[in-house]
């Protein structure tokens, strides 16, 4: 099989694999075997230490609008403990304040934005480690 045939198939398979969400995919025929593996994605998990990944239980709180971040006064800080669903900040869009909430309790492991920062849809704002 020529390399572009192989690559074309690997490409198609890669698409299928990613879509399926499975971890591993292997195809064998007469001349060729193509195997693709994927380890489950971990948000913001540094590539060097995939081992640690599974133990983490981190939620990313993302913006569901395009706008400008407004932190609270005083702002929610890293290491802060949250007892249940708490307001963390809001994102201002065309003068409207869209609250950002923690949904449930936990520890703020990272504040990923600064006050007044423009953010797009789906942009992570806070990382919360769940108990």
């Amino acid at each position, binding site marked *: 099989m020529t390399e572009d045939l192989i690559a074309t*198939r690997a490409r198609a398979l890669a698409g299928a694999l990613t879509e399926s969400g499975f971890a591993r995919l292997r195809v064998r025929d007469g001349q060729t075997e193509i195997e693709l593996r994927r380890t489950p994605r971990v948000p913001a998990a540094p590539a060097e230490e995939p081992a640690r990944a599974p133990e983490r239980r981190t939620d990313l709180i993302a913006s569901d*609008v*395009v706008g400008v971040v407004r932190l609270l006064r005083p702002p929610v800080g890293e290491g802060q403990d949250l007892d249940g669903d708490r307001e963390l900040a809001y994102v201002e869009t065309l003068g409207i304040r869209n609250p950002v909430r923690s949904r449930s309790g936990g520890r703020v492991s990272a504040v990923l934005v600064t006050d007044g920062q423009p953010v797009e849809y789906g942009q992570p704002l806070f990382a919360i480690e769940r108990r």
Partner: protein
Amino acid sequence: MFKKVLIANRGEIALRINRACHELGVSTVAIFSEADRQSLHVRHADEAFCVGPGPVMRSYLNIPNIISAALISGCDAIHPGYGFLAENARFAEISADHGLTFIGPRPAVIASMGDKATAKRLMAAAGVPTTPGSDIVASVDEAREVAAKIGYPVLLKATAGGGGKGMREVPSPDELATAFATAQAEAEASFKDGRMYVEKLIVNPRHIEVQVLADEHGGVVHLGERDCSVQKPSHQKLIEEAPAPELDHAVRDRLHQVATTATRAVGYTNAGTLEFLVSGDDVFFMEMNTRIQVEHPVSELVYGVDLVKEQIRIAAGEPLGFTQEDLHPHGHAIEVRVNAEDADSNFAPAAGTLSSVVFAGGPGIRVDTHVYSGAMVPPFYDSMLAKIIAVGRTRESAILRMERALSETRIEGVKTTVDFCREVLADPEFRRGGIGVGWLPAYLARRTQAAVL
């Protein structure tokens, strides 16, 4: 001239606008849905904002997020492209309210042309020939009176309608009541506006449209006509060309003259298209599209004008750099829409990954596309993958060039309309030219029958 333009669209037209901006030295801001993160229109823009998830209501139609992206990034104008918010007068207003120039006509003009009955009345008042028929009819009985007066077959149309929705052909009085009820229900469901009007049904007309440009200083020109009669049963255009073949000179001149007069009469500005039904020597105004159109490149190639750049210059307040006398058509151009559709099953759209994409090139071939080898085709949007445009000295040479280009085009991973369009280009009736909008549906019917036997 603008400093930075937000492109409120996706796909090939977003790329087309990005090109025009960059060639004018204007920076660009792309918007994209989570499904389009890998798209070329995002890669080539100077900045890009994700405005929502795949479904259009939450991303490409999400006005607050789009306007917000424009303000955050410091844009001074918005180009809406075609589809999505392009003919949304409210979006044009909101843009203006936030100090953003909407690259298109004034909101009031968008609104009046968007309402078909109003548009027809305005055009008639400007002396533009329109199909015999009524203004809004209050009831099915009033519709019946009008139909009797103009004679069957008639067409029932929702004034808010578009894309064939809220429209019914009525061959005889018996069918009128049912047709009226279903069309009105459809219109109310689709457009929250059930107002209907009646017009004479023109049987198998040609769809011929005229491209116009109007600046904000009274300058108005036309860039000739386009023949878009090759339409799928869904009324979607598949193959377009300029100039219209086999068209009587007098009719052609009348179309051009009527288009520019009408453009002035309604106080139109920016780029627009007047669509006409042509039947023999009769010409009837159908509607005016207040945006750039998919098929604009065939006019660009024949007239040597960059329509999208002109849109931007006009919106920036510049006068047209040329008069009608400066514009001379050269040769013939034809466009084929390469859609991710299966022509053998009613053009059912397909989605997936394009394992391999190789387009044609060489002399006289222009390709406008946002796809590439490995690109994903999301299920949420229009199925057009590319436009291939061929130009030649004559219609025949342009068609030969297009056949050559289609034979070089290889797209693997999804079914496309490439082979079907080659088949159509080879048909003797198409080759002769001058076919009506009923031709392709009839062709498809014959084809299916042949396949069955």
